């Protein structure tokens, strides 16, 4: 029974991890930027959900509908005004720049919300369901379903919409996309906006489950790193596979050798994957 519980927990958590990582993966794949603000955007989304519920009693499900367009606009503007100026610079410059932006956003959040941990508690609580001794909290289950739905929406955007095809084209070959008449700068901005919107939505879902504090942003960012490397870059299915794999490893690892070592294990695995299989589980070799 323990095994089944660990497995279910991993599946539930894995979809959430995928949701955390997918925006990060999109930005890394399309813009070739390691986006260190991602974690802080997730926390900001969580605060938004918390604030809306606390002051206006808007439930987190509706908060998703507010968060997504708002964060898209924020991301679009940040990319257009700041990031786009150094987009062709080497990784050192773009990574340090996003680190600087992260310092600003994180400090602003510490300043306004303080570093206290807060929790969004739904009233009445949603309880949990149990099936053959396997217990799953309902709010977690709904958050997982929403995470899957968000991932699906991104998949459909990239597959079906004209703009999505353009994003994929820029990712595969930037120069060829330019020759085909794709406006690369606007695609960059839209991809970054999408990434930010997904971070915000992931934050809303996280607010349901985990405590909220500006200090948690690096933990989310770390998860995004590991998921991207495990699953492979820039594909929706890769992020899902990476998220579930990470959750499985963490779950099994903390059951067998203790929860304190779960993070060490996942990062050690990340370094191992980078060296042995840098294209990830589902990634293809050939383009970076």
């Amino acid at each position, binding site marked *: 029974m323990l095994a089944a519980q660990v497995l279910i927990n991993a599946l539930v958590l894995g979809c959430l991890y995928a949701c955390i990582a997918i925006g990060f993966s999109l930005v890394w794949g399309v813009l070739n930027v*390691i986006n260190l603000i991602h974690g802080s955007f997730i926390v900001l989304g969580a605060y938004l959900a918390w604030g809306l519920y606390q002051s206006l009693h808007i439930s987190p499900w509706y908060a998703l509908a507010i968060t997504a367009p708002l964060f898209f606009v924020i991301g679009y503007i940040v990319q257009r005004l700041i990031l786009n100026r150094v987009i062709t610079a080497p990784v*050192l410059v773009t990574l340090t720049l996003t680190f600087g932006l992260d310092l*600003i956003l994180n400090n*602003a959040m510490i300043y306004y919300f303080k570093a206290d941990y807060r929790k969004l508690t739904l009233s009445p609580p949603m309880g949990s369901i149990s099936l053959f001794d396997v217990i799953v909290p309902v709010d977690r289950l709904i958050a997982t379903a929403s995470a899957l739905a968000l991932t699906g929406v991104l998949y459909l955007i990239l597959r079906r919409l004209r703009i999505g095809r353009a994003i994929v084209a820029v990712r595969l070959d930037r120069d060829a996309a330019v020759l085909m008449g794709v406006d690369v700068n606007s695609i960059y901005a839209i991809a970054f906006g999408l990434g930010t919107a997904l971070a915000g939505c992931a934050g809303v879902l996280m607010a349901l489950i985990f405590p909220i504090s500006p200090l948690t942003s690096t933990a989310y960012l770390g998860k995004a790193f590991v998921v991207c490397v495990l699953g492979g870059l820039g594909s929706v299915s890769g992020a899902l596979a990476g998220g579930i794999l990470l959750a499985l490893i963490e779950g099994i690892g903390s059951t067998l050798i203790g929860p304190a*070592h779960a993070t060490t294990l996942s990062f050690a695995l990340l370094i191992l994957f980078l060296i042995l299989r840098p294209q990830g589980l589902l990634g293809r070799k050939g383009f*970076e």
Partner: protein
Amino acid sequence: MMRSNLILLALVACIAALPNFGGSYTLRLGTIACMYAILALSWNVAGGFAGYPSFATAAFFGSGAYTTGVLLSKGVPLAVSVPAAGVASFVMASLLGAALLRLRGHYFAIASLSLIEVFRELVNNATDLTGGGMGLNIPLTAGSGVLADATFFFYAMWGLLLLTALMVTIVSASKLGFGLACIRQNETAANMIGLNGTLYKSVAFGLSACFVSAAGGVYAAWVHYIDPSDVFDILYSVKPIVMALIGGLGSPVGVVIGAFVYLGLEEVVWRNYIQIHSGVLGVLIVILLLFLPRGLMSLRSRILPWRTKHV
């Protein structure tokens, strides 16, 4: 290259006179200035000479601090523990480098960032040895009195800076430095003409970790208390990069000047805006990267265009 190395050594020599000019506050600033210069110069060996964007500085700083701290609390004298930390780090970084430096660009950046996380968690979980999240108290080592203490640690850090500057001077004038420049410009071509790239990169990575660890050790002995979130702070990785960017990538003198300029800015910000100091640092980084991506040294050629040199 020769002239700029002489300027570097002269600059370091000038700093030694600092204790004659001020009290313990000046000494504290001077010690931090030397520490920052060590971090920036060391980073420059991997990041500037070889062109590998390493974010692992904090990992080596922290492991050096903990190696020294644990040795000191076991009764080993400072004069042994700090070199031990440096040597251990050199060996470890060279071995890690042989594996990690096969990665390029973004992948190397992520791997080196993750190194901090791995080291921090290892230290966090080795509670028996390191005290884990409770931190590690380190016994007092130096002489009696506040001022004597401050002077001692200033000269300890300064001595390390001198060693680091000598190392950088020797590397940049040697075959190793030339090989690293080849690797930076075109690694595939460098390998093609028979340069042992892996060896060169590993040694460079080891050298860039060695003095950082020793500085971490002196820092640990100086502040008497360390904990994982303090010495494995990712800021120790980013600050040297910002300093190097302020000064202009690649040039050791520029990097040291960048470290001093950065310390000055940081001190002003800490004094006046304690609540928002990291935000102000962020603004500084963004402005620097957007408007002065080639560093302060590039201003010279902008103001005095006839002295422009092509490097």
